[in-house]
């Protein structure tokens, strides 16, 4: 948000500053009036994190598949070459997440397909012209470039050998093979131009349909766990795995011309730079770039291929493994550490209240338990549309904070409740004030249990923080996610092994901390 304001200020200094002030005032009064204290604490830390994370003027987003990553890299370098600092947040998730991020100003541009815009964003079944699309998007302050040059439509693919043997050439031919197992991406299963209407149009009889990650689906197809899956027509894996595309003989799939969506408030030079990519990528070229990305396991290298005819980029393409590992690990610790700190600051007082029982106590323990049962992916998805969160580090920290809460709250409450009544009463009878009782007697006596809760939260957070990469918050989940996407176990391990070691290290560190923080009299 600050980034955008900075740019505007330069253009029209006076009005820009005025607007910034108004905005700050609105935010302040909103926070002061609505948010409880702990949310205020919350808002301070992550804001600084987000600012430190995006020093660039323009932030490019991409969805979680190879082609989107490559287009994102191309856009980033095109902007950099035009002298505009740009950053690429890779693999942020599905259409809705990236679209919300664009509207919420967390990103400034991302690659999208005309078919997807009509169906998923504008929610219409009509086939829209590019001008109609532009008109509708303008209401959200979003613009679209001209087509980049290729049509990446959805397609159904099969193993070439099996298709040849059974004589399957078109989607209609699938009607003769009800025994086929079909594996589809979750997005395709739910899309309005996805599986349900496709099945209806072609009257497909298959019952065995499962949802599976796109990259894993190829592996499943290869080892015959499934027979048919969805793919993009420029997908390099079609050739790599020796698959065939089934002809869409009833012309079910709409056109998916690739364009860049951008916020209309972007400075003109940035838009001009993005538009340089228009019409430069035909299907053959895009497929080749995708193949290069899969071969080298490096999106920047693939993007390089696009620029080979032009001037060499001045930005460094490769980053050494150790440098990357340090960056991931630091970010990972930042995510897990801040969320743990917040969970401790909020969880211990809540635990103290919960230990007193009554309706408030049950409500707190109930809330913390319910949060724990929400799958972490779902929790992230629930937080992303909220105004304060969006696609950002603070969403990841908020989710991790909520996960870390239960063990701390519960252990604090149990630790306090387990203090024998006689000792509790002794503290009262001595004449200590309630605060002094808590600090000098109750909390030290419950310290072992409280620390055990914090340890559990820390280890959970280290593990769960790998999911932060799904919303572009980085950390050791980044290589895990790319690895999944590239179907490359080595890359997955680059993230998974350090994450596991980190969890062990944290466990060990807390065991040491026990010796310092638990009073000696309780350890005898």
């Amino acid at each position: 948000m600050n980034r955008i304001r900075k740019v505007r200020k330069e253009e029209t200094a006076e009005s820009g500053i005025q607007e910034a002030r108004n905005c700050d005032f609105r935010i302040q009064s909103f926070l002061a009036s609505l948010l409880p204290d702990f949310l205020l604490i919350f808002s301070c830390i992550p804001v600084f994190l987000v600012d430190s994370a995006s020093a660039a003027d323009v932030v490019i987003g991409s969805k979680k598949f190879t082609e989107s990553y490559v287009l994102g890299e191309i856009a980033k370098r095109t902007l950099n070459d035009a002298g505009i600092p740009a950053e690429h947040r890779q693999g942020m998730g599905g259409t809705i997440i990236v679209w919300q991020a664009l509207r919420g100003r967390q990103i400034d541009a991302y690659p999208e397909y005309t078919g997807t815009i009509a169906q998923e964003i504008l929610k219409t079944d009509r086939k829209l012209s590019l001008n109609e699309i532009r008109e509708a998007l303008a209401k959200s302050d979003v613009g679209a470039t001209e087509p980049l040059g290729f049509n990446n439509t959805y397609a159904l693919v099969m193993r070439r050998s099996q298709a040849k043997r059974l004589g399957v050439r078109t989607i209609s031919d699938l009607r003769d093979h009800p025994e086929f197992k079909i594996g589809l991406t979750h997005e395709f299963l739910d899309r309005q131009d996805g599986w349900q209407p496709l099945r209806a149009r072609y009257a497909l009889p298959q019952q065995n349909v499962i949802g599976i990650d796109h990259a894993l689906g190829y592996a499943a197809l290869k080892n015959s766990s499934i027979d048919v899956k969805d793919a993009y027509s420029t997908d390099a894996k079609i050739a790599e795995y020796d698959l065939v595309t089934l002809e869409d003989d009833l012309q079910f799939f709409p056109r998916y011309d690739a364009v860049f969506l951008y916020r209309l408030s972007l400075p003109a030079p940035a838009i001009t730079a993005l538009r340089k990519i228009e019409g430069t990528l035909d299907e053959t070229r895009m497929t080749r770039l995708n193949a290069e990305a899969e071969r080298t396991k490096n999106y920047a290298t693939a993007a390089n291929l696009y620029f080979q005819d032009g001037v060499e980029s001045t930005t460094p393409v490769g980053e050494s493994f150790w440098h990357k590992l340090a960056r991931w690990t630091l970010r990972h610790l930042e995510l897990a550490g801040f969320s743990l700190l917040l969970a401790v600051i909020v969880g211990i007082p809540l635990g103290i209240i919960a230990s007193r029982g009554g309706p408030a106590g049950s409500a707190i323990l109930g809330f913390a338990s319910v949060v724990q049962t929400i799958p972490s992916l779902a929790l992230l998805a629930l937080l992303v549309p909220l105004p304060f969160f969006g696609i950002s580090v603070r969403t990841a920290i908020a989710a991790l904070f909520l996960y870390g809460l239960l063990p701390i709250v519960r252990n604090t409450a149990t630790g306090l409740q387990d203090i024998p009544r006689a000792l509790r009463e002794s503290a009262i009878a001595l004449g200590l004030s309630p605060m002094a009782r808590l600090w000098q007697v109750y909390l030290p006596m419950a310290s072992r249990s409280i620390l055990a809760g914090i340890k559990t939260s820390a280890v959970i957070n280290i593990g769960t923080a790998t999911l932060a990469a799904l919303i572009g918050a980085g950390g050791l989940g980044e290589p895990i996610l790319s690895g999944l996407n590239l179907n490359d176990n080595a890359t997955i391990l680059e993230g998974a092994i350090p994450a596991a070691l980190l969890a062990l290290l944290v466990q060990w560190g807390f065991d040491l901390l026990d010796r310092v923080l638990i009073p000696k009299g309780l350890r005898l």
Partner: protein
Amino acid sequence: MSALVELVDVSKRYADAPALHPTNLAIERGKTTVLIGPSGCGKSTLLRLVIGLITPDSGTIAFDGSQITSANIGTLRRRIGYVIQEGGLFPHLTARANILLMARYVGRSSEEMRARLLESCELTRFSENLLSRYPIELSGGQRQRVSLMRALMLSPELLLLDEPLGALDPLVRAALQKELKEIFARLRQTTLFVTHDLAEAAYFGDEIVLMNEGRIVQQGTVSDLRERPADPFVSEFINAQRGPASL
């Protein structure tokens, strides 16, 4: 001289049953008053009412002339010492830290605390070398000595003892009984002592208060109870406690 503590028509009910029927009792200064009776007779309830761990349903309790309220109980507690059966020592604090907890809290100077600590070690015959031990490293008798030191640290006007010797083996118990009696005499300590043991009551009590089913049955010296029982329960209680040996 008026009584230090005065209970007027004090009663207490727990959810299902009355624990203490409306009761009057005066605790005289400088004397040891012993509350005795079978378990569940209300003697501990009475003690807990005086220290404010529970509040009476009716009646008033006055301490040194002023009525105990929720507003003044906090400061009044510093004028009352309290020792329970298991000692009630905090396991995370050393013997020294347990004893000095309140003195530190009210901001006594360190010279004053050191002097007072040596004095009480001598009084309770507790070795100074053991002061840095944690409760778990002390014997039952040592723990009760520490608990007593903690209760006496701020020179309370009233000392409450809830079966303080109940968990000790007989030899230690006999020795401590003797010492305690000497300490009370030396300090001219006003004491309210709860026990279910008649011999102990007879040994300590200037005044014995026999309770049953939430009521005071009889109050007086041990010979009053033995020779002029107020009702059959008194004789029954006394005879039962003599045990087979003295039959």
